[in-house]
């Protein structure tokens, strides 16, 4: 009986100690907030924010006070989510919200070179070699990477139109003293 208890205690203490030492020695430096912010970004690595990719922008947001309004594909919603998580006020007044965009391929100019398909991170472009490519508008999130790479300037970015289904009333304009 005593032997059982004793041996188990020894095993427990030894393994626990080992785990403790391993946790200290093999500790990986990772900022949880950075990870969380990265989760809020679209993840298309388009670089329109001015950073190399989403990870770098998340790092800059967490440590370098980068403005929350830089993500173009994410738009207003992403800016607001980021601002809320970081506890800062999103200054949307200076942020020129272009509104959501999507890519359109001009079929007369497309030479079927596949380069845009290679760039597209959300598989929104279909086509094959020397055949006209086209964009599936619903899958495109407007990162504009294809727009930049197209050798014949066959791609242009269009605004996602407001339809009867997406339209809603504007906020009423009233005097500041109302409430």
């Amino acid at each position: 009986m005593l032997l059982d208890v004793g041996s188990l205690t020894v095993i427990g203490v030894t393994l626990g100690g080992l785990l403790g030492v391993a946790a200290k020695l093999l500790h990986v430096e990772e900022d949880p907030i950075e990870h969380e912010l990265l989760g809020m970004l679209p993840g298309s690595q388009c670089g329109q924010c001015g950073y190399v990719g989403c990870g770098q922008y998340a790092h800059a947001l967490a440590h370098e006070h980068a403005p929350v309004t830089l993500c173009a594909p994410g738009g207003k919603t992403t800016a607001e989510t980021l601002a809320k998580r970081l506890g800062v006020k999103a200054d949307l007044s200076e942020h020129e919200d272009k509104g959501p965009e999507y890519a359109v391929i001009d079929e007369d100019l497309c030479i079927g070179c596949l380069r845009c398909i290679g760039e597209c991170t959300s598989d929104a472009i279909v086509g094959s070699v020397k055949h006209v490519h086209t964009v599936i508008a619903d899958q495109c999130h407007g990162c504009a990477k294809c727009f930049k790479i197209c050798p014949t300037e066959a791609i242009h970015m269009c605004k996602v139109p407001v339809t009867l289904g997406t339209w809603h009333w504007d906020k009423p304009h009233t005097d500041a003293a109302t409430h």
Partner: protein
Amino acid sequence: MKLFPVRGGIHPEYRKDATSEAAITPLPLPTALYLPLQQHIGAPAEPVVEAGQRVLKGQLLAHAGGSVSAPTHAPTSGVVEAITEVAAPHPSGLTQKTIVLLPDGREEWAELPAPIADPFATAPEILRRRVAESGIVGLGGATFPSAIKLSLGTQKKIDTLLLNGAECEPYLTCDDRVMREHAAEVVDGARIMAHILGAPKVVVGIEANKPAAIAAMTDAAKQFGNVEVVPVPVQYPMGSERHLTQAITGLETPARKLTADLGVVVHNVGTARAVHHAVRFGRPLLSRVVTVSGGAVAKPANLEVPLGTLVSDLVAFCGGLTQPPRRIVNGGPMMGQPLPGLEVPVVKGTCGILALTAGECDEQPPGPCIRCGTCVTICPCGLVPVEMAAYIRHDKLDAAAKVGVMDCVSCGSCSYVCPSHIPLVHYFNYAKGAITAADRDRRKQDSTKALIEAHNDRVEKALAAKKAAAAAAAAKRAAEAAAAQASSETSADKQGNP
């Protein structure tokens, strides 16, 4: 029948006298009909006709575009001129895909589905399909496809079909006139709907300010034991399905649930009449009754209008406008939406067209909130409008959602009573739209993220497979080289040692 009190509500001036005695007049065929593909809640209909094609009255023009959708039929015979973008009867002034039909005046009927002589001996599913194929949607203004609401009986135990004849909006008298002039058709349609739902009883709720309609409906219903006509108190918004249900059953519909969860399905009286036509005669929904009223209209009237007629044709038939209206409203003055102009078509959900004078509109500038609490007292949904509006004003939409802005039915009672003329319901309409838009954005981002992850996974796997193939090829080459060397060595050995 014992009635139950409903919280809050208001008593606006009803102003129904202008049209309540005006019998329903059929509007002569206009020179062109504009039939939008989206006249209902859900997916737009998909056209099955082409420009230049001749169509007959009642012929299918566009079929339902999804599980929640409704087809559209030709209100008269004529030629499809085009399928193009036309201004929608919507406050945004946006256009939508519309079938333009030029009537030829011959009113030639297409071959209609066979009338169902004894609907009560017919399976509910067959009747439900007939309602769906006839393009019937909620004619009270909500335009939800009726067949879907009628299928609730298969999922839930429905004990009452509540027929909504409350018509609590001021000015509007189209339901009143339909009940007075076509009571038998309405009652028959209601009984068919109750049969589809499997509901043993039908209750018709009519506001007590319509004694003629109550008398006509009671008379039409008296030969049927399971149809009861109940006068309900005059109190806006009694015509809201949740509030009418509460008045009749005493049960309040929980937030984000349906009245069907309480065993009650509510349909408008006009919808019941359309169901009667579809089942008994095979006629799809081709026209509806519209009240044209307001201080700026020369001769206010109730008109039976072919769907797709321009509002300007209705106004012209009513003698035109006596003065430039301050506002053109689609629907009633409480919940109706302003129209961008008169050149928009009447659709399935148009119950009224009001040309209001400046004297009929309250356009005083909003003042400071005096914290009187009237909006809280009258809110029929038990919300606190003053608090929600304050949150929304400061862009705290999440906080507004937490105190229930999504449960607001936009009845407008709070804006109506506010002594400071604060556009409360405008705040809530904005907030509801903005919250829905943000939700839509979030869903789009989630789907984009999933696509990107799938793409990255695939690229990684392809890369790994390439590497593995290269490694395998290298290994194979090495093995071959080794084998070749070994064989050359052995042959050398052989040569060396003959």
